[in-house]
């Protein structure tokens, strides 16, 4: 990922005369295209979810009662807040307030960490209840419930992987701000990294009702 973000600035040296300025639009277009691939990656999983929910409505309903709505709601708010600190960090950079930007960005990474922490407690409590793929308790349940929990772990797990990747990218951005690679005149890297972080947020916005609320 860092390569992808890093390569945007190359456009500058390879663009032509008319693109003497940095090709900010090009970098954003490229990032959006990448976001579409992420979106469609998850779309495949949402399609699987929709199909199985349609096949086993009652069992999905029952399984959904077992997830921890409180954990899910808190985590949603944590991630939404991290999106806020992300845009505030970019806003601060635009105004040239380097340390404010650093603070907000560090806050974003911290909120990501809190999200993962809550996720950890949530998963351990569920695993302690014997609800994990291939567990004896789960295999005794109906097909629909096995599928629900399979999807639950796959989808929130893949999302958590994206949160980790996002945090790594944001850490790079933090270093770039400190070294001055990202500054008031050139903050496109921070902006594209922010786009990626928001996408992670959007995916969670849809995961949240599907696994924690509709029951």
């Amino acid at each position, binding site marked *: 990922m860092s390569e992808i973000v890093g390569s945007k600035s190359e456009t500058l040296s390879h663009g*032509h005369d008319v693109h003497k300025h940095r090709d900010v639009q090009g970098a954003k277009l490229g990032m959006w295209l990448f976001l579409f*691939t992420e979106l469609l990656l998850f779309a495949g999983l949402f399609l699987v979810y929709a199909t199985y929910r349609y096949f086993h409505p009652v069992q999905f309903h029952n399984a959904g009662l077992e997830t921890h709505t409180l954990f899910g709601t808190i985590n949603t708010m944590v991630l939404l807040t991290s999106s806020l600190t992300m845009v505030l960090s970019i806003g601060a950079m635009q105004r040239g307030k380097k340390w404010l930007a650093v603070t907000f960005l560090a806050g974003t990474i911290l909120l990501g960490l809190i999200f993962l922490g809550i996720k950890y407690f949530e998963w351990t409590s569920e695993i302690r209840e014997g609800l994990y793929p291939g567990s004896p308790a789960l295999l005794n349940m109906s097909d629909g419930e096995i599928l629900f929990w399979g999807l639950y772990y796959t989808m929130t797990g893949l999302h958590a992987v994206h949160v980790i990747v996002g945090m790594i990218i944001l850490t790079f951005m933090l270093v770039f701000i400190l070294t001055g690679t990202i500054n008031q005149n050139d903050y496109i890297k921070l902006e594209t990294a922010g786009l990626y972080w928001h996408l992670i947020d959007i995916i969670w916005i849809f995961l949240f009702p599907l696994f924690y609320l509709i029951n």
Partner: protein
Amino acid sequence: MADVAIPPNEAFANSYLKNHGKRKGILAWILSTDHKRIGILYMVSLFTFFTVGVILGVLMRLEMLVPGPAGKLFTAQEYNALFTLHGVIMIFLFVIPGIPATLGNFFLPIQIGAKDVAFPRLNLLSWYLYVTGSIIIIVSLFHNGLPDTGWTFYIPYSIRTGTDVTMAVFGVFILGFSSILTGLNFITTIHRLRAPGMGWFKMPLFVWALYATAWVQVIATPVLAITLLLIMVERIFSVGIFDPAKGGDPVLYQHLFWIYSHPAVYIMILPPMGVVSEIITTFSRRTVFGYKAIAISSLAIAFIGYLVWGHHMFVAGMSTTAQFVFSFLTFLVAVPSGIKVFNWVATMYKGSIDLKPPFLFVMAFIFLFCIGGLTGLLLGSVATDAQLHATYFVVGHFHYIIFGGGVFIFFGALHYWLPKMFGRMYSIKAANWALAIMFVGFNMLYFPMLVMGAEGMPRRYFAYLPKFETWQHISMVGSWVLVIGLIIMFANLLHGIFKGKVVGSNPWGGTTLEWTIASPPPPPENFEEIPVIVHEPYYHPEAIEVK
């Protein structure tokens, strides 16, 4: 033609083939972000794997020497591995990267008057991902036995078999990323880096085709990625998502697989269609007929191609409604494809046709592609497909489309552009002979498959009924003829690259931007001055006006 611009000697002294950077030897290639060098890197890797795929294919035909099951060259299990490897290598390592990664990388920036693609380092990264994915696939072969699932990795077999499907699938997953990054790069390049004056309808048709292809790469490949990821998750954690024993639905797997893999057919065929438009107009010495129609039809094919994946699953247990819908949508693809073919033929009308090898490849393409397309009609309608599904007929059909259509044009494109890439010309006579031999071998190899399939010969069987013996033998001999043709062609091209007669910047009289710069092109920025575009791409001032 306007062949005077740059004297050849000067062109060779100042070409991308000469080292200009600070790195030496192989490093100057594998660390280069010059789109031309990356194109060559891809080309070398692709044709290496193509050779492997061809050898596997010939071995599969050789297996049909006797009906069996006694006295066979390979066991049934080995034959399973052969068709899996042949499929995986040819599809994922050769045809899908195919023209975009090689010639597209090389000529897309030049044709739109840019100095490079939008993200040059990302471009190099995509080659590394390609190499990594390929290595993982190759390693998976020698680990826990050869994979035996077929290139489609159908569930439930792929989650039950003991061979190392997980690793093979992971390799394909990485290759998918390579494809996505190339597509993303091309779309951004076309949007942002066109030369001044090059409006959307002044772009060469090859660029239009690559643009449509790039969208398919970006929008469809992630669905394959998640499908393959789910196979891995299933094999490692057995979560049950596709496992029928735990309530999973194998038909849903097929949906997800073909949501990518049908559009992938258009990743394979759209770029060749773009090349055909280039070659026909150049060798007819006429501007292309129906430029806008051809350009838009590329987008239309990419779009409709996204709606038809279900025709791979007519007999898989889909609902009747879905069979009806997908069959109907499938027939719609014929409309934009037909638009292209009619416009190509109309371009030749009253043209001053020059029967050089690239043009002859296009002629072969039109013939083979028509057979492929017409047999496709039988597979697109549900009633006949129920009879023909999973027979040799399907195998014959897609080889006519992908090999006869796509790969023959890949070869034609090499004959068209190699003089530009290396500044030297191959032997025209040898090229014509190679094409003639390949054409004969191809039809001997695949036409019998259509016949046998119609008579009920199933695909992927290592043995067959004695009544098919004659056809199997014709097909087998055809594979040898085809290989002879391939060897002559590659020998001729390689001889041309290293020892061929030096040619000027525009040997064919082409009108797009690549013919205005030196052969081989200068590094790394292609143009000394960024051109300003005033004409349509195919402006032949000397052509006769057709009234």
